[in-house]
Structure formats: structure tokens, C-alpha cells
């Protein structure tokens, strides 16, 4: 007997289990082939939404930031308006995505705010940081070198992005573990492992997730309030909080709220995504030993390998937009006010764009994946993410060429982040 075929109408992507268990690739494939603009019905408290699964359609939406706006929320379906009041501040935060960081800002203000900081993220700036990134990478690897085994996520993959973004934000090293913990709470809020402020028997619910995200957000804002206080007295060079304090948009200084949201965004956006690309990258390379060997023997393959790792892992499952006018897409009527979710792992396996998309190929060219999004909100940190991945794999394989994943990775319970929480590895220790 074969399992009954899954119909598009059976598919509800607002379910973190599908993502924790890695069933989502199959569900996305069914939608992409049979119902590429798919209406996902509402849940008990969450809105219904359109699931967009074709590469071309994600381009279409991303290129129209005035019509498909970000200011009503960029993650998940959002909460039904009539349920908002009873679900407190956390839910409202989730719906609005915070009040004023660039990721939830629309044109024309968006680009003005982004330009305050984007000089720090250009290819030139990234290249200038490379020696420092390599130094930090080796410091991280020094700490595991004698052990022969470790939790790759906690001890390696999470440490580099944390160090880089905390360095740019002027966060002192003693506070890095706190930033790690708070990022997990905000972006992994749906996973019981991070719901440490919630009584054990109440973990795993939607409300537990909202409260956990709120707690992480508030603690982080509080922390940066202290940082700003310090920088007003002691401005620093090349320090993002200082730059934001001194910046003006349309002749006006930013409000403290704006700056706090900006700091918060940079910390969380820079952290967890890159971590998962590093962990997922090692995982998929170990699943393809011939390609791993080829890469170790020839680092000139590194650039295309990194792009393929990004395509393959797609560290963010989706970004959301809200339509401001009626739009017809593939014969479906998207109405003003409707939420759309753009599923990046699906675009990145779209047969119309990528030949043989389910084959991992470190030599794949061209490879115009959408792991960093595209258009108005294209990932500000893409250059840093790429450089961190490259330096990490170069140094990791130079020092531990026989590193292997030795147990099943523990995956994050999230519809938003393609996360790995723990992944045991073994390697020959350095003497």
C-alpha cells in the first residue's frame, strides 16, 4: 500500500513541525508544481496567507515594494486583527515587526535609513575586515582543536557571526553569550528549548512563543539603551551605535526608538542566519563526501561552493509582505490587505531556473539563488555572510580535513528560520 497522495488543499505551512522534520521541501514541491500561488487558510489566531513558491513570482513581488509592503510584518502570517487586543504587546510586536527598523520599513523612508549604515557593508568594507574575520575564526577553532569532538553549532558555527556583528556594534566580549541567548529567544521563540522563562508545562504553545520573543526583544532593547547612553558620552570610531546616534534623515536626528530597533535588527539578522548556513553547509558537504574532498583539494571551488550552500540551505524559510492593492498572480486574486509569504527554499529549487535542482553541486554556475532576498530589502549583510562562510570553511578544512558529522542534527522548530540547534562532529585533534 502506498501513502495517500498529498493534495495542495491539504497543505498548511503554518506548522513548525513540517520544518523541524524537514518535510517542507516535499510540501513546497507539491505547491510549486500544482498550486504555485496557494491560499493557506487562517488558523485559530493567525491570518490566512498566500504561499508563493515560484522564483519568478518572488521576483515580481520583491520588485514592487510599494505594493507589497513590509511594514505590516515580515515573518509569518501575523495575528488576526480581532485577536490582537487580547494577545497583548507581544503579538502586536509580532504583527508590526517592531516599529521602525529598516526591515519593516517601506519606501521612500527605507532607503534613506539604509544609507546611514550601508557604507559599512560594501564589498570594500567586507574585504577590509577579512584579516580580522580570519583571526577570530582561528581563535574559535583553537578552542576546539585539542578536543577531537564538539557540538559544532554551539562551539563553532554560532561563534563567528556573533563575534563579527558584536564587533561592529561595539558589544563587549563578556556580553556575547547574552546576545546569543537573546537572538535564540527572538528568532527561535517557537522552540521549547529557548522558552526558558515559561513554566515547563506551558512550553510549545503559540502564546509561549510570543512571550519568549517579547522577553528577548525587551531585554535586548534595554541592553542597547545602556550602550547608547555610553556612546553619547564616549563616541567611538567605526561603531554602528555611534554612527546612528550622529545620523540625520531629512534633517532630523533619529529617535532613540528608531536606533534601538536598528541595533536589535543588526544583532539578530547577523547572527542566526549565518550560523545556520555554516552548520547546514558542513552537514551537506559531509553528506557528499566526494564533493567535500574535491573542495578541500581545490579551494578555487570555494566561491561556487558557498553559493551552492546558500541555495541548498536557504537559511530563511520565508519573508512576508502585505498587499496594498488587488493584484492578480497566475490567475489568483490577491486582495489589498492579504499577507503573502515568499518561500525561498522553493524558489531555490525551482526547475524553471535551476537544472536538476535537487542535486547538490559545488560547481553550479550560474547560481542566482534568492537566499538573501532581492530588491529593496536585499540582505544588507550578504557580503559579510559570504566572507564568514568562506573564511570559516577555508580554515576549518585546513585544520580539520577529516571532520565528520557523527549524529543526527537537532533541528529548530520554526517556520521562519531553517535552523540547526545542535550537531555533533568528530575530527582528528591537533597536537
Amino acid at each position, binding site marked *: 500500500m502506498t501513502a495517500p497522495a498529498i493534495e495542495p488543499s491539504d497543505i498548511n505551512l503554518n506548522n513548525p513541525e513540517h520544518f523541524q522534520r524537514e518535510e517542507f521541501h516535499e510540501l513546497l514541491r507539491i505547491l510549486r508544481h500544482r498550486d504555485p500561488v496557494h491560499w493557506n487558510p487562517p488558523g485559530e489566531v493567525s491570518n490566512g496567507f498566500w504561499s508563493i513558491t515560484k522564483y519568478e513570482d518572488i521576483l515580481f513581488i*520583491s520588485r514592487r515594494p510599494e505594493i507589497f509592503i513590509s511594514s505590516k510584518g515580515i515573518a509569518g502570517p501575523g495575528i488576526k486583527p480581532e485577536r490582537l487586543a487580547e494577545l497583548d504587546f507581544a503579538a502586536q510586536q509580532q504583527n508590526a515587526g517592531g516599529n521602525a527598523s529598516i526591515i519593516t520599513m517601506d519606501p521612500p523612508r527605507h532607503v534613506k535609513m539604509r544609507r546611514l549604515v550601508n557604507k559599512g557593508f560594501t*564589498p*570594500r568594507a567586507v574585504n577590509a575586515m577579512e584579516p580580522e574575520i580570519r583571526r577570530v575564526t582561528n581563535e574559535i577553532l583553537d578552542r576546539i582543536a585539542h578536543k577531537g569532538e564538539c557540538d559544532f553549532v554551539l562551539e563553532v558555527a554560532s561563534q563567528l557571526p556573533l563575534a563579527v556583528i558584536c564587533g561592529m556594534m561595539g558589544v563587549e566580549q563578556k556580553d556575547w553569550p547574552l546576545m546569543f541567548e537573546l537572538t535564540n529567544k527572538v528568532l527561535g521563540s517557537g522552540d521549547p528549548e529557548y522558552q526558558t522563562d515559561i513554566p515547563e508545562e506551558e512550553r510549545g504553545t503559540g502564546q509561549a512563543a510570543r512571550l519568549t520573543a517579547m522577553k528577548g526583544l525587551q531585554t535586548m532593547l534595554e541592553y542597547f539603551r545602556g550602550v547608547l547612553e555610553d556612546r553619547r558620552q564616549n563616541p567611538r570610531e567605526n561603531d554602528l551605535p555611534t554612527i546612528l546616534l550622529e545620523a540625520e534623515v531629512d534633517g532630523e536626528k533619529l529617535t532613540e526608538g528608531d536606533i534601538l530597533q536598528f541595533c536589535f535588527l543588526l544583532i539578530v539578522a547577523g547572527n542566526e542566519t549565518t550560523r545556520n548556513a555554516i552548520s547546514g553547509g558542513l552537514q551537506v558537504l559531509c553528506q557528499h563526501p566526494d564533493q567535500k574532498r574535491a573542495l578541500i583539494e581545490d579551494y578555487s571551488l570555494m566561491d561556487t561552493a558557498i553559493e551552492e550552500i546558500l541555495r541548498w540551505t536557504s537559511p530563511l524559510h520565508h519573508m512576508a509582505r502585505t498587499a496594498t492593492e488587488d493584484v492578480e498572480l497566475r490567475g489568483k486574486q490577491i486582495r489589498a490587505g492579504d499577507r503573502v509569504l515568499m518561500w525561498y527554499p522553493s524558489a531555490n529549487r525551482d526547475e524553471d531556473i535551476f537544472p536538476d535542482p535537487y542535486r547538490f553541486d559545488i560547481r553550479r554556475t550560474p547560481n542566482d539563488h534568492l537566499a538573501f532576498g532581492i530588491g529593496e530589502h*536585499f540582505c544588507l549583510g550578504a557580503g559579510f555572510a559570504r566572507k564568514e562562510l568562506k573564511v570559516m570553511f577555508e580554515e576549518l578544512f585546513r585544520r580539520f580535513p577529516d571532520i565528520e558529522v557523527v549524529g543526527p542534527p537537532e533541528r529548530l522548530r520554526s517556520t521562519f528560520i531553517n535552523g540547526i540547534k545542535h550537531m555533533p562532529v568528530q575530527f582528528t585533534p591537533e597536537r
Partner: protein
Amino acid sequence: MKVRVKAEMCEGHGKCEKAAPEIFKLGDDDISIVLIEGDLPKELEEKAERAYRLCPRQAIELIP
């Protein structure tokens, strides 16, 4: 067809220069410069369209 780069959007990713070096060049300030004033020769239009498609920041404008 004419080409324009919106300087306020461009962040120097250089995909345009890679796709169509005859048309784009990254300047010293990491902002892409259009090398061809006025209408593009017909044979470059396809390359311009490819650059438009690849630009991650949607900074390239094609004016028919």
C-alpha cells in the same frame, strides 16, 4: 533602450559589471557607472537585461 543606475540604491555588488562590462563599471566609491550615454547598441540590450535581472538592489533602470 537607455540604461540608468539609481545611485541611491546601488551598493556596489558588481553583478552588473560582471554581466555586462561593456555597459557598467564600478567607480571608486563602489557605485556603478554607466559607460554608454544615450541608446545602447542593439547587440548589448540582452546583456543589459541580464544585468537588470541580476542586480540584487534593483538599482538598474532600463528605459525603452
